[in-house]
């Protein structure tokens, strides 16, 4: 009886400790989220009365070519970026946990450094580098004898965005993979080596299965953060050239703060949220079914 009372007391204290965080998330995350759901059913220009329009905002956006352009631009950006980041950060993490590599700490710090930089100055500097007389252009012209229209081609600029994003965030996911790799018991590799397993066999049968939870976390967080990309496109291209880099977050911003259509903007953000929710649920189910 005394033990039960003591644990109940501990639990109450636990709630007290997490209360500030719960309050913070409720005020700045949960309540605004429900507010956005509600606002998506209204037409509102910020100063006049909210006019209930039901699903009209959703009907309009599903008929709007600009919305679909942004949606596809965002999917394209997310899909490619996540694949590239996953691939590069995994291999870098593998190399940095290898016993053969020297100066691991220095390399790790250098690769992680872009993560701690703010995206806005990063975007400004890369923008200068991408200009016709910028560093990258000078290198390409002098070494490869041709120039790339990094920010003035609707076909190339989306990949320029991916390049900058991958450069900036690979270090973050590399650290996740390193943590995951260091958590794999060494004894598995020793047994496998004794049984004659080579590098690829160890990788496929030990490393990757053991990294499953890390991979789930990495993919879900990478997809969520990448899908919501905004400052990179806002600073470097403002969605140009010709809306080829106008991601959903940028469209939401423009509809709300430039065109003063808060209801319509909220409807786009609801679609944004539902897309990410569906992605996350599908991913979790795939990995969960893999486990069973």
């Amino acid at each position, binding site marked *: 009886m005394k033990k039960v009372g003591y644990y109940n007391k501990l639990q109450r204290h636990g709630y007290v400790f997490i209360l500030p965080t719960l309050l913070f998330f409720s005020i700045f995350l949960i309540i605004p989220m429900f507010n956005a759901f509600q606002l998506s059913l209204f037409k509102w*220009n*910020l*100063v*006049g009365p909210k006019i209930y329009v039901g699903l009209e905002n959703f009907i309009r956006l599903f008929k*709007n070519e*600009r919305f679909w352009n942004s949606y596809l631009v965002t999917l394209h950006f997310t899909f490619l970026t996540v694949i590239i980041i996953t691939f590069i950060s995994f291999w870098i993490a593998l190399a940095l946990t290898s016993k053969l590599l020297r100066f691991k700490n220095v390399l790790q710090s250098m690769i992680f450094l872009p993560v701690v930089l703010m995206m806005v100055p990063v975007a400004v500097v890369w923008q200068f580098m991408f*200009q*016709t*007389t910028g560093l990258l*252009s000078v290198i390409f*012209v002098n070494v490869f004898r041709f*120039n790339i*229209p*990094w*920010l*003035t*081609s*609707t076909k190339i600029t989306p990949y320029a965005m991916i390049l900058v994003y991958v450069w900036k965030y690979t270090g973050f996911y590399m650290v996740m993979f390193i943590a995951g790799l260091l958590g794999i018991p060494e004894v598995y590799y020793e047994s496998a080596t004794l049984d004659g397993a080579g590098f690829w066999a160890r990788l496929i049968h030990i490393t990757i299965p053991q990294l499953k939870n890390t991979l789930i976390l990495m993919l879900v967080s990478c997809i969520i953060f990448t899908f919501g990309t905004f400052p990179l496109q806002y600073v470097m*291209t*403002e969605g*140009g*050239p*010709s*809306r*080829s880099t106008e991601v959903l977050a940028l469209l939401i911003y*423009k509809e709300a*703060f*430039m*065109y*003063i259509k808060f209801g319509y903007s909220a409807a786009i953000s609801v679609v944004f949220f539902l897309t990410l929710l569906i992605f996350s649920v599908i991913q979790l189910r795939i990995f969960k079914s893999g486990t069973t």
Partner: protein
Amino acid sequence: MKKASLFRVLLLLLASVFLVTAGGQKEGAAKEEKIRIVHFHHTQPPFDEIHLNAAKSFMTKYPNVEVKFLMYADADLPTKVRTALVAGSEIDTFNIGSFQSTWFMENRLVEEIMPSAFGKQTVQEVIDMWEKDAIKKTGGFYEGKYYGLPSEMSNYAAWINIAHMREAGLNPETDIPKTWGDFVDVAKKMTKDEGGVRVRNGFAINLKASVFPFLILHSLMEQKGLDWGTEDGLFASLDTKEVVEALTTFTNWATKDNIFDPGLFDNEREGFGNGLTSTFLTGGAWYWGVLDEYTVPREDVTPFRYPRYKDGKDIGGVVYGYSSFVTKQARNKEWAWKWLDHFLSHPELDIVHGNYQPRKTLDPTLADKYIPNNDVFGYERQHGAIILASTKFNEIQDAVGEAVNRVVFRGISNEESIRILKKEVKSISE
């Protein structure tokens, strides 16, 4: 024991909260004796110091008034003002560009002019303190009523680097372009490529910010006889061949004439100031003050009249401006208008740096004295295109900017781009 400690902690917290709020009330009580005016303005060196000094001199003249002068980047100011108004924050007066002011007037967020604050009997007497039609041109007039007072009236002129002209074998006395055809010919000669890389544009415009191509196109359209001063006029124009001709003039600069490579830089005012472009079309008289911040010296540049079409109307660059308003939520409206009267009563200080305020107290000889080539700006002001007045200005301007970008970056034809623009403008109007 533990309960006693908890009680003491809670008591201490309550006492602190009480002290803070009591101190705040005391401070608030002290502040209530002074009339407080909070003014929002865009930052624009070198005028910022002049404006802050105006606030200081007002407070010296009226010690019972406190003016808080807040400055924000021009592009951010409309959002800041809207947010402050909606949140009920402190905002008594603000200054905003004519592109944005219609929204505030239509949504009844600003006060009509109060003649008594100016020592006048009627609104017309206040209007007569400024040049004819100045308030309309600078965005202070809407649906028959006057709400704003001009702090700046500007118009775009074309600018050219005469050092580049000489370098290209052109004579600045005789070769200044008069038609759009001349403009392309001259710009072509001044365009420079090195090793296949563009190092100097003959002409430049910032295509990232759709307002700039929109404003140039606005003039081209008006020169073609189209009405881009109203939403209905703009929509009706999209069915004409003239709209395609005007758009083609613009897009050819990048796609056919090759005088403009958008990859060289974004900001054409900066590019011109650093010698990276030989001409641009989005500078007012205020640009003289801005140019002084860059490497190209004043003696190497000259403004000139916007080129015209050979068979087009005599219309120059757009006339626009900034106006100051009193908000509906201003706590003391009469003092707010008095402050604006004071703030706008020293046009002779702004003119030194090329900013023209159309108040009748401004000595007309000062404009000639301080604005080099004022004859160009004066003529263009008389023949300038009046900017589109619409609460959907931002959306329409973006759609027009995208019409240009589709042709320049995607290779779509001008006709097809206009067809898509028509669809977008129709959707915006619904």
